[in-house]
């Protein structure tokens, strides 16, 4: 009996993903910069809103996701940098890699970057902005992160490809990315606030989480429907 070979696309996906992640692990440029940026954003929020010593606990979820969405812009902008810096952009586009796999690998990279930032950002937000303990809610907050990251990664991967050849890439990407990201900010901030912002409303949390899942599915469908046309061939 012949053992079924694993389909080629999973191998390619793994290879591409691991390549990006390994590169990042070696240099750690992007992750470090993103984490620093996130911390700085939190400081900005503190100085902008907390100077009078007000209790920002009800806003902690909002601050977390404002920070994460701005940091996500950075991560998305960096997702094609490995190819670009090594001058292999044309090469990898010419290679017979299915476009869907390529986009999925970029989405995976963005997801990983976001996770790395969240590992630092969530405890810091809890430390800086939440008066009271958050330990019990960490699981739910983590779940929100995992869900929201899906939508952000799919969205970011699609738009990063649209901005791939643009002249003013750093300007185009935020303008393109952020308006579509707003629903995630609303839902993710709402979800975190529902559990950590002083009250503990699980039905609210569930409502927002469902929305995040729907968001990821819808944009997944959009990306799936259009990936064929994103690249030049």
């Amino acid at each position, binding site marked *: 009996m012949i053992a079924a070979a694993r389909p080629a696309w999973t191998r390619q996906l793994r290879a591409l993903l691991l390549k990006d992640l390994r590169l990042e692990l070696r240099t750690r440029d992007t992750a470090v910069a993103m984490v620093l940026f996130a911390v700085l954003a939190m400081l900005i929020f503190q100085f902008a809103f907390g100077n009078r010593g007000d209790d920002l606990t009800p806003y902690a979820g909002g601050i977390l996701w404002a920070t994460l969405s701005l940091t996500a812009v950075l991560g998305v902008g960096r997702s094609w940098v490995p190819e670009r810096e090594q001058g292999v952009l044309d090469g990898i586009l010419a290679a017979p890699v299915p476009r869907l796999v390529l986009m999925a690998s970029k989405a995976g990279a963005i997801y990983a970057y976001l996770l790395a930032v969240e590992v630092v950002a969530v405890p810091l937000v809890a430390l800086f902005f939440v008066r009271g303990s958050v330990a019990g809610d960490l699981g739910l907050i983590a779940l929100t992160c995992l869900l929201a990251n899906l939508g952000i990664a799919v969205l970011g991967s*699609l*738009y990063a490809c*649209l*901005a791939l*050849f*643009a*002249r*003013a890439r750093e*300007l*185009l990407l935020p*303008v*393109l990315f*952020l*308006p*579509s990201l*707003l*629903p995630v900010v*609303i*839902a993710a901030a*709402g979800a975190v606030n*529902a559990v950590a912002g002083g009250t503990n*409303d699980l039905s*609210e949390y569930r*409502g*927002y989480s469902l*929305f995040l899942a*729907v*968001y990821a599915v*819808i*944009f997944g*469908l*959009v990306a799936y*429907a*259009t990936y064929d*046309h*994103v690249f*030049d061939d």
Partner: protein
Amino acid sequence: MTEARPGRRLAVTGAATAALTALAVYGVFFVAPEDADQGIIQKIFYFHVAIAIGSLLAFAVACVYGIRYLRSRDERHDEISATSVGIGIGFAVLVVITGSIWAKASWGTWWVWTDPRLVTFLVVLLLYAAYFVLRSSAEGERRMRYSAIYSIAAFASVPLSFYSVRVARSFVHPVVLTSSGANMPNTMLVWFAVSQLAVIGAFLTIMQVELLQRRADKALRRIKLRLEAAA
């Protein structure tokens, strides 16, 4: 191939729109009963909502023609898609301004974050402003292809934005269908319908005008090229 009388079709659409608009204004102000709760302020809704729906229709048309462009790679589909987005944005601006006036009339402030429609159209403005930024960042075939893809993604964002605001609101205030919803007496509903038809007519008229302008522009450019080559 150009039709012999594009002007004729435009004249018909334009005249019908003008007639519908006049009829709607007459109906809204002289026939429709005044709303029990909001009084005369409610009359803003007739065109405010009609233009809002018109704007969404325009973006839907843009999405549909974006899809058609991706299938056919026909430049005319891209043209219609882009024009539609432009008209949609124009309508959306009107929605936000009239909505703001309505907010001031109802609640005393020029802006509220609690009305999902108003907030959604602000987001929609930003969403489709990005469409034109994307368009100017690329050229030729890529411009048309990217625009088509974004017209689809942006249109998917519209209901997501609306529902995210609504869901957030619903946890604070249970959502209730206001008198601008479906429980409206027929005497009002009919004038809503007329206003809506007038707005749709305006969309079609403006679309035809825009496409005609582009056609003239392109024809002139062709002549210019030919003359410069002969010189």
